[in-house]
Structure formats: C-alpha cells, structure tokens
C-alpha cells in the first residue's frame, strides 16, 4: 500500500466488512458495487462483528468469500427461512439475506412473503437484473416483456410467461414490512441513493422495527450480450420504466430514522 502523506486525510479505503478476495463477478456486473455498499454500511454502523449473512443460490452464492463476517449458505430461495431460524435464536445479532431475482422472486416467493409477513427483524438485499445469471441467462420472473433469454429465445411472451414480478410493490402491502424500496446501481447518483437505502434498512433492523428490503436494479452484461456501458443504458431505458424507483413502504418509525 502506498504511503499517504500525514497532511492528507484518508477518505476512501477498503471496508473492514469485505475480505480482500477477488470476486468472480463478470466485468460490469454491479454485485461488487452492492457488496461494497452493504459492507460500508455495516462498517459505518459498527456491527460487522455481530452480523450473520445468508447467501443465496445464484451469482452471489459465494458472497461469503467476499463479506468478512459470519455467513451461511442457503438452499435456493430459502435464505429468509434460514435467516428466520438465525435471528430468532440470536435476536441481538444483525441478520441479512442477499438474494437475486431467480432466488427471491421465483423459487423463494413463499419464504420471502412469509418472513416479511411475520415481520422478521431481518434485512433483505434483493438484486434484480431481470435474468438468471449463474445458470447461463434463462428467463427470470423479472425478465421484461419481449426480452430474449436462453429460455425465452423469441422474447418473453406475457401470454405464456406472464408479466414481470414486482417484489417491492408486493412488499408495500405487507404489514410486517417497515421499509421497502427499489433503487438502482446504474450511475453514481443511484449508487449513493442505494447506499442510503441500505443504511436505512439496517437501521430499521437495529431499532427492532420489523422486516426491511432493498431491491436494487442491476445489470448482467454477460447474459444480456452487451458491454457494461450498454447494459447500464439498457437497464435505465428498459428496466426502470418497468420497475419504477423509489420507496414503496416506509413506516412512520422508519421515516423518523436519522440516516
């Protein structure tokens, strides 16, 4: 590490909550950015040593190699159930799940809905890139109408496959959810807003208010067959109109939190 002159203040460094491992994420994928945002928030809140994370099945299956904290690896879609078992037996710990759209919005809908309904004091980071990345680019529940994937080669036909699943809007009507928001890590302003949302979600948990979820719109340059920059633009032009950004549920207590 290069020496920093004493007269200069260090304003950017590796978060303690991340390991120094190189990630396996593809170039242009924003999982790395979202990992960093979660890590920064956990550092800032000073809770790294009391946090237990739950990794999904999907691209983030190896998240436990990148987060520098206790972690477990859940069966596909079951992270909220595992997190329930962990949090209920460790109410003083910070527990979060990190899940993709196939994991959370398809196979894991039952687990996420009921964890939310029970108002589990956990936080879910939900990364939505409209595709199954790890298995090679199949149609996800969040795939856009007309979007071509390896399992919707003619484009998603809503008559056959229905319309995309809107998790943040579903969360908005669940009483146990105290905070649900959809953000995007597609530009600097969005990254900053996402960081703030993640902090609010973890603060809600630390205050024992209920279930909090941050949906993050992301990209998959590899399986969208685009370069990273084009993927960012495509997501802005196509995903955001389908999945509008912003809070869908903010309880009064969460609204009163100082973030």
């Amino acid at each position, binding site marked *: 590490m290069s020496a920093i002159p004493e007269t200069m203040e260090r304003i950017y460094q590796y978060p303690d909550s991340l390991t120094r491992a190189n990630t396996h994420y593809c170039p242009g994928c924003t999982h790395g950015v979202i990992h960093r945002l979660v890590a920064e928030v956990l550092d800032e809140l000073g809770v790294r040593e009391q946090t237990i994370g739950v990794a999904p099945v999907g691209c983030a299956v190896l998240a436990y190699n990148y987060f520098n904290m206790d972690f477990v*690896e859940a069966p596909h879609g079951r992270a909220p159930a595992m997190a329930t*078992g962990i949090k*209920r*037996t460790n109410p003083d710990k910070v527990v979060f799940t990190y899940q993709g759209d196939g994991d959370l919005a398809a196979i894991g809908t039952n687990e996420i809905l009921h964890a939310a309904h029970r108002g589990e004091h956990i936080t879910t980071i939900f990364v939505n890139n409209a595709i199954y990345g790890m298995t090679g680019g199949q149609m996800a529940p969040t795939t856009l109408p007309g979007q071509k994937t390896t399992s919707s080669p003619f484009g998603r036909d809503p008559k056959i496959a229905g319309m995309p699943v809107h998790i943040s809007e579903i969360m908005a009507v669940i009483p146990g959810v105290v905070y649900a928001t959809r953000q995007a890590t597609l530009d600097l302003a969005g990254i900053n807003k996402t960081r703030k949302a993640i902090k609010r979600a973890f603060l809600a948990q630390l205050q024992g208010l209920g279930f909090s979820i941050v949906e993050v719109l992301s990209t998959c340059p590899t399986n969208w067959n685009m370069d990273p920059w084009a993927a960012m633009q495509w997501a802005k032009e196509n995903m955001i109109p389908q999945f509008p950004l912003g809070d869908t549920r903010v309880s009064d207590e969460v609204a009163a939190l100082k973030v």
Partner: protein
Amino acid sequence: MAKELLKGNEAFAEAAIRYGLEAYFGYPITPQSEALEHLARRMVEENRVFIQAESELGAINMVYGAACCGVRTMASTSGPGFSLMEEGLSYIAGSEVPAVVVNMQRGGPGLGNIQPSQSDYFLMTKSAGHGDFHPLVLAPASVQELIDMMGLAFDLAEKYRTLVLVAGDGSLGQMMESAELPPMQPFPRPRPDWAVSGAKGRKPHIITSLDLSPEGLERINLRLQAKLAEIQQHEIRWKEYETADAEILLVAYGTTGRICLSAMREARKQGLKVGLFRPQTLWPFPAARLHELAGQTRAMLVAEMNAGQMVEDVRLAVAGQTPVHFYGRLGGIVPLSDEILAEVKKL
C-alpha cells in the same frame, strides 16, 4: 419424576423441551400435529423459539438456520411433509450441523391417509435427500422409548454434528401410555465454538455445503463417509428377546416390533421357539448381530407396515444363511399379533 399417562406426540414434544430444545419449527400435519400444538404453548411458556412455518420447506430451513447457530433445534412431520423437508435435510447433512426431525409415518404414497405406516423406511435410511449421506435413524417402540430417544437424538446430533431422525408412526404418535418424562435440563445450553454467532474478535465462520472443485468436494465427502463409518462403529442399537434358543426369529422395528413381541410371547406359550430382534437404530442397521443370529435360526420373519423395505437390509445382513420371509400390511393397516403368529406357524 413420576409416571404419567402421556400421548406419544405430546410426550416427545415435552421431552424435547426438557432435553434442551431451544427452537422448534413445524407445520401442521396429521398424525403429528399434537406435537406442534403442545410446543406452541410450552415453548412460549419457557421463553424459547416456536414458529409455525409457511410450509415444511420453510420449517426445515428455519431448523437449518438455527442449527448453524449450534442450538438444539428440531422439526416434526409425517410422510408428505418429510418429502418436502428432504431438500433441507440434504443441506443439513452436507454442511454438518446438528438437527433432529421426527417423522410420524402415515400411509402413502401421495396423500395416502393418516393411519400408521412404516412406508418411509427407504426414505429415511437411504434417501433422505440428494447426495451421498445417511442420517442416523432412531426407531422407538413405546412412548417411554420415544421420550428417551429424544435425548439420545440431540446428544448424537451434537456429538457427530449430524442429522438424526426419529422414525415413529401414527400409532406411536397417537397412543397414550404410562411413561416418565426426564427432569428439565439446565437452559440455555452453551453454544459450540464452530457456530455462527458474529465474528467478534475471531475469523468469520462460514457454514456451507458448496465446494465447486471436485477434489475439494471429494475430500468433504470422504470426511462425511469417515464420520458415518464412525457412527456405524459406535451407535448401532437393538433389542433381543428370547434369541438364545430361537429357531424362528422375528425381525421388526417400532410399532411392528411391539406387535411381534406379543406374537412371540403367545408362540412361546404354545411351545414354539420364537425370538424377536428389534432394531432401535435403522441406520446404522444392526447387520452384524443379525448375521450372527442367522447362523443359529431356521428361518426369519420380517414384519413391517409396508410392502417390504427393512427386509432388504435383513437379507443383506443374513446373506443367504437362512430363509428370510416377509409379512407386511399396507395402506395404514396395523397387523394383529395373531396374523404374525399365523405366519410363524407357516414356516
């Protein structure tokens, strides 16, 4: 503690609490729902964790999460629910965390019915989930043995960091008989060093069943197999009745084992040299002792409430030394001791 009149389902639930159960996760299914109902009240009274999950998938993954924290945790279910739990059971086995699941078997396949059955023997002993593993399977034959085996189940699960199943059936769950509960053990129990608990002043603990390299996963599998071999060496349990001079040996577990005991006693009254061998662990199976006994018996009769599942393990153990016959009732029918005796007389 004094003897009380206890129902099987409530007895194992209460026994689990007294043996230190910290977190229970279940889903209603007949014929085990009294356990869930008992725990819904008692776990709250004891200030412990009880959740009625959204499904058996939810329940077993809550168990998995709690097991990663090193607490005494369990679920209970019956056949159709057990099928759903197999996903989580495989992960529990693969990541080597201790957990207990009680299966009060009922008639199948499909929705089947809610009557007693032993049709999940294969499922529990040989295919409790994808991948190469065996849970340790205990087979109680009375309410008292069911109570006692709950303590054993937690002890063995923790000792070997493994999955332990308790193989009951609808009859055992529903019957009431006189039994003694254990005293309340100290609670909360200390948590083990390997558990996830927040990486305070130490390196992170990672609990996973994933290893993407074949060499790495083979190493894990070999370690698992070595552990299973150790369990096979130390944890085989069975009971023998009148085997010393038995010419005909009955082999049965659980409820059928009890019925065979009645049949054996009646046979003895009638002067027939009949003995009984009752496995108390279905995996590991008491094959070596059965092999010995096979050398001194004229014939064996395996009785089960299924179309013939444990009989395959008996035949493997006997290895052709003596004929192994089978008598089974299906669809939730419990055989009468007279039926067993009639079969014995045919041999």
